[in-house]
């Protein structure tokens, strides 16, 4: 669960509904629960314990949200613990060609040495307000689908504005149960965040992309940051105490973090479309991208460094998508999804009011999904054109096209002056990639279009202009002036220059934009149907089941519970823990060279071999229900203390996007005692040990 995969966050109501799995009886320990609705009775029954309000407030206010991931305060002086892979981009950002903190690690010996990370913002969830009823009243009786949606949107904007003014916090809408509930979550934003300690990439991601999502593991996937305020270490209201020992086999575990996205409430038709159409296309696209990146990385150390984070993200996404499909192809699980859906539909059909509301919604969602699948290939090709210059040109062409329209005819994100300014600022920040990489990406995308759509498809024709992919790409790149920053700026600032420009990249972008426009319109139409009927199914489901179930993940704070627990794997039972002894086992087993140094120990770890207690627990598994976005979440014991750090799920957990299988779905965490031993014995950062362990 690395890098960008933490979650491909979609803030709005993208995915949809449906019915999950054995809804009346959720499976053991299933669920990513919102803090207002925990299955207290179930927890008590199984574990003889459930958190009280003070416990919940304490862990909520100790938790922080990272871009794409999670973290927590672990000292009174604002020290923040997260994964290395959540911090990876930021560690890379404060590195340069002479200071490779990703490769070599970083230890700030003093507070003065802590490095400010530009652009990194962390959030703490301060309050949550349910606005569902207020929004329901906003839609006039008998309004059409579109009118109702618009009315609700406007009401929500008003509520958000009021909340912002009232609290002075960053307020975000949170749509739960596919529209069944809407909340406003208010966050305190921390903008001065500094890097304190990062282990070497080689030990954080020991086993590299091979071992990603697998178990047993040996990863020191943590990093430490510190929040500052007014130039001084920030004193958070709450922080997690570090437990003196990690968990024992069978101990209860809580995970507090930000699961990014699940699709467990989608309808069967949606899951089948993912299984049969969208998923396989996604695998193809990611496979093409990873091949381009691997080829580029083999050119040398510097190219490899440039794309390491991107490559990790793409490899991760590839593995996720492949194994999600494995889950969707599991006949037994899909039969269970179908059974639950049939049950809910039967319950809906029995009640005239519910039937009128949602009786036909499944069929409408299915029809919309089928329509959406018809241009899935084109979407995949456009998504595979990863050239930064083309992305820039597409942004520009879109801006040109939208601003040519009167404001009320534009897409929603181009309506106001502020929208336009934001778009331009984003384009300004885009820097073209290395020429070799640009060429490779364009060529790969062009080839994909040729193979998947054929030479006569309008998209292929626009991309290639009748030429061979390699030639078309190199002509574009040699002809374009978009490499030149001044030229890019002039196009952004001067509408006339933009209008007159016949730069070949821009010309291509304009024709692509023209092809995309009708698809975009249709997609929006389809999305509206899916959103509306998804919400209706959710409402019907609410009526039938109440809040005995949890909502799909939304990259907002959730709590999941479970225990350190084995599972059947590869013919045996998986060990619940690994130890430092196992780290050396795996390193020795492969040797430093194998699979491009994937299991090579950093020098500090080779040197520390004699001084470490090899019995120290290193990583462990637990039955908590988590998903991408939970990376960096603290693992907490009954006393509310930190016992571990979530960094991954096992390969079986990928099916968790669609359903939770308690037999085999496991979270992977770094043991708190392993982290502490490493900070102390390997990184010699006793000041941090003292800070973390002081009461």
């Amino acid at each position: 669960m690395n890098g960008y995969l933490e979650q491909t966050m979609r803030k709005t109501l993208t995915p949809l509904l449906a019915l999950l799995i054995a809804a009346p009886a959720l499976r053991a320990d299933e669920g990513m629960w919102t803090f207002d609705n925990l299955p207290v009775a179930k927890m008590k029954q199984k574990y003889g314990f459930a958190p009280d309000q003070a416990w919940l407030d304490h862990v909520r206010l100790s938790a922080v949200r990272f871009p794409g991931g999670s973290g927590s305060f672990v000292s009174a002086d604002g020290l923040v613990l997260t994964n290395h892979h959540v911090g990876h981009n930021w560690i890379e950002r404060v590195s340069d060609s002479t200071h490779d903190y990703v490769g070599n690690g970083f230890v700030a010996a003093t507070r003065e040495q802590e490095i400010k990370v530009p652009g990194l913002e962390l959030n703490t969830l301060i309050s949550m307000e349910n606005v569902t009823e207020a929004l329901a009243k906003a839609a006039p009786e008998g309004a059409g689908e579109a009118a109702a949606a618009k009315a609700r949107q406007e009401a929500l904007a008003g509520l958000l504005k009021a909340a912002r003014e009232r609290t002075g916090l960053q307020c975000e809408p949170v749509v739960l149960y596919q529209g069944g509930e809407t909340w406003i979550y208010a966050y305190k934003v921390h903008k001065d965040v500094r890097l304190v300690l990062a282990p070497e990439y080689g030990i954080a991601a020991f086993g590299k992309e091979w071992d990603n999502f697998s178990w047993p593991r040996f990863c020191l996937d943590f990093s430490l940051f510190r929040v500052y305020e007014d130039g001084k270490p920030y004193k958070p209201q709450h922080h997690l105490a570090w437990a003196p020992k990690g968990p024992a086999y069978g101990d209860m575990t809580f995970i507090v973090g930000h699961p990014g996205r699940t699709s467990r409430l989608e309808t069967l038709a949606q899951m089948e479309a993912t299984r049969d159409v969208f998923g396989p296309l996604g695998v193809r696209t990611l496979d093409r991208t990873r091949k381009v990146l691997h080829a580029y990385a083999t050119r040398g150390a510097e190219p490899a460094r440039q794309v390491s984070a991107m490559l990790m993200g793409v490899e991760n996404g590839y593995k996720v998508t492949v194994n999600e499909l494995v889950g969707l192809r599991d006949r037994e699980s899909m039969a269970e999804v179908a059974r639950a859906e049939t049950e809910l539909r039967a319950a809906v059909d029995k009640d005239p009011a519910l039937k009128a509301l949602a009786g036909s919604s499944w069929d409408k969602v299915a029809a919309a999904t089928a329509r959406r699948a018809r241009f899935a290939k084109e979407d995949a090709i456009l998504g595979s054109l990863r050239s930064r210059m083309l992305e820039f040109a597409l942004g520009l062409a879109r801006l040109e096209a939208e601003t040519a329209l009167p404001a009320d005819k534009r897409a929603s994100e181009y309506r106001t002056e502020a929208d336009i300014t934001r778009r331009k600022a984003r384009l300004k920040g885009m820097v073209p990639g290395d020429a070799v990489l640009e060429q490779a990406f364009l060529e790969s995308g062009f080839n994909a279009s040729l193979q998947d759509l054929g030479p006569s498809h309008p998209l292929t024709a626009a991309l290639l202009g009748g030429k061979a992919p390699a030639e078309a790409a190199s002509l574009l790149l040699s002809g374009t002036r978009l490499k030149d920053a001044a030229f890019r700026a002039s196009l952004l600032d001067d509408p006339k220059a933009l209008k007159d420009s016949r730069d070949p990249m821009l010309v291509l972008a304009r024709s692509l934009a023209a092809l995309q426009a009708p698809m975009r319109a249709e997609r929006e139409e389809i999305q509206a149907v899916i959103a509306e009927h998804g919400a209706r199914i959710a409402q019907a489901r609410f009526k039938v089941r109440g809040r005995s179930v949890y909502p799909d993940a939304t990259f907002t704070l959730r709590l999941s519970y479970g225990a350190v627990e084995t599972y059947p794997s590869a013919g045996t039972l998986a060990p619940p823990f690994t130890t430092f002894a196992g780290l050396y086992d795996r390193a020795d087993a492969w040797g430093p060279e194998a699979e491009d140094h994937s299991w090579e120990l950093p020098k500090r770890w080779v040197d520390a071999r004699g001084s470490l207690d090899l019995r120290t627990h290193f990583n462990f598994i637990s039955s908590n229900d988590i998903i991408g976005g939970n990376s960096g979440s603290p693992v907490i014991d009954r006393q509310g203390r930190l016992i571990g750090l979530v960094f991954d799920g096992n390969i079986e957990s990928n099916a968790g996007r669609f359903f939770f299988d308690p037999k085999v779905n496991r979270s992977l965490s770094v043991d708190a005692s392993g982290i502490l031993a490493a900070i102390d014995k390997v990184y010699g950062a006793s000041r941090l040990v003292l800070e973390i362990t002081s009461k």
Partner: protein
Amino acid sequence: MKPSVLGLALSLVAMPGLRAEEGMWTFDNLPIAKMKEKYGFAPDPAWLDHARLSSLRFPGGSGSFISADGLVLTNHHVGRDHIQAVSGQGRDLVRNGFVAATREEEIKVPGLELLTLVAMEDVTARVARAVAKGLPDKAAQEARQAELGRIQKEIQDRTGLRAEVVRLYQGGEYWIYTYKKHTDVRLVMAPEVRMAKFGGDADNFTYPRFGLDFALFRVYEDGRPYHPKAHLAWAAEGLKAGDLTFVTGHPGSTARLETQAQMLASRDVAWPERIRTLEALRGALVAYGKRSPEHFRQVGAQILNVENSLKAMKGYLAGLQDPAAMARLGREERELKAKVDADPALKARAGGSWAAIARAMAVQKPLARELAFVGTCNSTLLGHALTLVRLPEQAALPTAKRLSEFTDANVEATRRRLLVDRPYYPELETALFTHGLQEALAGLGAGHPFVKAMLGGKTPAAVAGLAVAGSRLADPAVRKALLEGGRQAVLASQDPMILLARRLEAPNRLLRQRMEDQVNSVVAEHGGRIAGARFRIFGKEVYPDATFTLRLSYGPVSSYPANGTHIQPFTTLHGLFDRALAWGPEAEGGAWSLPSRWWERKDRLALDTPYNFAHSVDIIGGNSGSPVLNRKGELAGLIFDGNIESLAGRYYYDGKVNRGVSVDGRAILEALGKVYDAQHLVKEITGK
């Protein structure tokens, strides 16, 4: 990994291009060109003779000579029954391990025989001449058996060695293999079963592994250590990832040449039924073991064996349930059949053979189910009694008409088995016999003639209790007297087990004969015809199914994709401690707990010593205990298992994921020297 049930004929897997490293090759027919092309090396005849003469066959497994003084290396699990046999109350060598500090302390194992393959002779042509053209299937089969019996006896008489018929390519070739037999075998060293079977049943058939699954025996002759003609030198240098390895051993049975009809019968009937039966037996053994620690000691090894078989069968079944693999095998069968149909001569001979086998499978289904119950009902004494009842009756028949264990070639071994003195526990005997009778009652129903005959209106517990209490057959001297007394003595015996055996004899024999006539002979005949046709088409580019005779497999130490990653090619002693610490001493019945001497001596050990490794060699149950050789023909490791993916290897070989799992020779030396205080054995083995 143990060999089980015999498999039958046919049609393999992408013949023209076998998968990389695929094959359990006979020593007369190695894919030399292929080996050379891929590895730049292939063994020469001297290498092969040395490896063959250093190899040994154990009952159900393999082994090798590793010193000039007849020291033998095999797996702990191959030797386990024998280690148990020399244990006794208060002296549990399985649990506590054993090291003979001197040769005088080496313990003689009753009944254990090891075999060295001395010569191999191809008798296919002579057998073919003995079968007249146009004979019906059954008569042809009898003619063949008779001729084979004659040849076998001739060779046995000529050489004084043990001669065995080896049927290769489902009857495409017949060979006589002759063996030197070693009957004085003594236990030298065995680690604790916890080390040998570290990870318990859970880890069995899996990898990465941390098993110290070895044991040392010594062959004696005339009361002195035997000096074998050849033995394996211990490798001077250990293996690295990618290094080529060879395995010489005795793969028990595969079923890769079976027809689809046979595989489907196994998938839908045979395996599910056997799994059910074994699960019930396991339940009975576990219940017995719970009575006390001593009860558990009595059945410990048997439970492990049953669990081992269960996991294997479930793996075979999973292989057959893989729709992609089955579709591929089906396609290959259709291709072969099309080739056969395209040639008028082949078509005339074998075109109808697939259908004939399919019909036999339909007959087999009800027969096999009945035969599963109409037998000795898990009673050892009833087994002895049945042998005693049958011996005189069978001896009166010509050898070709006898049941297989009473033919001229086999009857000697049968008599010997009867007289072996093994530990006997009447309470266990009663419990298992009761269980067996209950199973028959539940499976066949109270109205079935066999059930009526055995129970005579009483309960299974009553019948078993009375028979076990009243029988004297547990005493080898009593058995010997009955054996020597012949028909008269047996007829006069009022031993309750003999009386039961008389009731059992006819129904069991009739079922076996029907199975032989209506199923096995059809499968043998038509399997042979298909194999013959296959021979005509592909020649000996392919290897025969496993027959528990000496074979050679080869391939490199290598990783494989599993569990979302690439699996490490080696494990180390570091990993042993990691696994023990991960689970702690209590979890899962202590499956991953270490004997205390391993903790006490941990700091002496070089923890980076390679411990177990995975390699792409095509092996199967029966290969357990096989030596792993390097290019120089030196011993580098010891096969003890396959990964879970290897179980499907019974039906097809998948080179991507099928791996043999071995103990690294370096770990064996490290353990002998630093944990077991057996420096004298290290010295004998390494010559240093």
